[in-house]
C-alpha cells in the first residue's frame, strides 16, 4: 500500500535525436531497482508519468515494445517545462518513471484481424510500440495483414527512421510512407496522410483501424475510414489530454464522465461518438 505518486528512480541510458529540427528525442531508461524492472510489464499504447525532479512530471506513451525485455523508451517532444528539462538532460542522469497507466491499444481484440495503422507526425510513438509488438516472431501469426501508413511534414520529421528502413525490407508489413513536402533526396510518396489513406484504400474486411496524430489528421481521416467501411467500433484512437496524476484523481483529463488517463487514452470511434466533443 504505497503512495501512488512516488515514481521509480530510473537512469537515462541512451538519448537519441529523432528529427532534423532536434525537438524530438527518444530516451531509453533503466530502472535503478532490478526488482521494479522485472515487475514492470505494460501493453503498447499505455503511458507512464515521467518525472524530471525539480521540473515536474508529464504523461508520455511507451515507445518501446513490451517484447524487448529490459528496454523502456520514451519519445519526447520538447514543448513545456518538463520536456525541456528532459531535453537538456544528459545520459546517466536520474529521472522518475511511474505507471503503466491507461488501457493501451486493444491487442486482444485485434488478434485474428488485419490491422491498419495510420500515424502522423510525432504521434507515432505508441503506434511504433504496437508495430514492433505485432512484428515480434512470438506474436506475428496471431495477426492478419499489417498495413502501416505513416507520414510527416517533411522527410526530416519522420521519426524512427532506423525502424522504418527495416520494416520496408520486411514482407511481414506493408509500410507506406509519405511526406507533405518532399526534398531532393525523397523518392517515395508525397501527400497528406488522409489523401494517401484514400489512395491506398486498404480493405476493411475483417480489419481494425488504429489512428493517432494531430487533430487535423484525425478529422480528415475519419470520414475516409468510414467510407472504406471501417465500423466505429473497429476504429481506435488515442487521445492526448493535460494530465497531472495519471491515476484518475486530479480531475483534469476527463471527457464527459470518462477519465482519459484511466478509461483511455485509447477509445473506439463508437465510444467517442457518445462522448461530448471536448477533446
Amino acid at each position: 500500500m504505497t503512495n501512488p505518486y512516488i515514481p521509480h528512480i530510473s537512469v537515462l541510458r541512451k538519448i537519441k535525436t529523432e528529427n532534423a529540427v532536434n525537438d524530438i528525442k527518444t530516451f531509453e531508461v533503466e530502472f535503478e531497482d532490478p526488482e521494479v524492472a522485472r515487475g514492470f510489464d505494460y501493453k503498447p499504447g499505455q503511458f507512464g508519468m515521467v518525472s524530471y525532479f525539480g521540473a515536474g512530471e508529464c504523461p508520455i506513451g511507451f515507445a518501446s515494445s513490451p517484447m524487448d525485455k529490459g528496454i523502456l523508451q520514451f519519445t519526447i517532444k520538447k514543448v513545456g517545462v518538463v520536456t525541456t528539462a528532459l531535453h537538456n538532460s544528459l545520459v546517466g542522469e536520474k529521472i522518475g518513471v511511474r505507471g503503466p497507466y491507461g488501457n493501451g491499444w486493444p491487442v486482444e481484440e485485434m488478434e485474428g484481424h488485419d490491422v491498419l495503422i495510420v500515424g502522423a507526425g510525432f504521434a507515432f510513438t505508441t503506434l511504433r510500440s504496437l508495430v514492433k509488438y505485432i512484428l515480434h516472431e512470438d506474436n506475428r501469426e496471431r495477426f492478419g495483414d499489417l498495413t502501416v501508413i505513416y507520414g510527416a511534414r517533411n522527410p526530416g520529421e519522420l521519426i524512427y527512421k532506423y525502424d522504418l528502413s527495416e520494416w520496408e525490407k520486411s514482407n511481414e508489413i506493408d509500410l507506406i510512407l509519405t511526406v507533405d513536402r518532399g526534398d531532393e533526396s525523397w523518392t517515395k510518396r508525397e501527400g497528406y496522410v488522409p489523401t494517401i489513406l484514400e489512395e491506398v484504400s486498404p480493405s476493411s474486411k475483417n480489419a481494425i483501424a488504429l489512428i493517432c496524430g494531430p487533430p487535423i489528421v484525425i478529422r480528415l481521416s475519419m470520414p475516409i475510414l468510414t467510407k472504406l467501411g471501417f465500423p466505429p467500433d473497429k476504429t481506435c484512437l488515442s487521445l492526448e489530454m493535460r494530465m497531472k496524476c495519471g491515476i484518475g484523481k486530479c480531475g483534469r483529463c476527463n471527457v464527459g464522465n470518462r477519465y482519459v488517463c484511466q478509461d483511455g487514452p485509447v477509445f473506439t470511434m463508437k465510444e467517442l461518438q457518445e462522448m461530448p466533443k471536448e477533446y
Partner: protein
Amino acid sequence: MNAEVKGSGPEEETSSEGRWEPRIIAFLCNWCSYAGADLAGISRLQYPPNIRVVRVPCSSRVSPYFIIKSLQRGWDGVLVSGCHPGDCHYISGNLVARRRFAVLKDMLEYIGVEPGRVNFSWVSAAEGDKFSKVVREVVNRVRALGPAERLVKVG
C-alpha cells in the same frame, strides 16, 4: 533552462573570524556600473567581497521579479546599479527603471521589508571609486540589518 531549474539561493558563508557575512546580489548595467566595477578592480580599489554580480544589458532589464525572487531565495540584500540619467546607452532605459524601482522600493518597505535590503545606485563607467564606496555602504547597511527572514521561503 536547467540553470534556472537548479538555481538556488546563496550558500551560507561566514568570514574568517566566523562572523555572519551578508550575501548581496548585484545587478550591474553592462555599459556603466559593470564597467565602473571593472575600473575599481583595475585600480586595485578594495571593497567587501559580499556581492555576487549579475550583468544586465540595462538597469531597466531588471524586473521586480528578479529582485523579489532573490529576496525569496534568501539573498540578504539586493543592489541594482545603472547609468546616471542621460548616460543610458539606450537613452531612456534608466529613466523608465527609475520609476519602476521607486514603486518597488516604496511597496516593499510598506509591507515591512526593512529599508536597506533593496538598494539602487547610479555608477558611471568612470566612477571606480564610487562603485567601491557604494558596495561598502550597501554591505554595511545589510550587515546592520542582519540575516534576511521576511519574504524568505523556508521549508
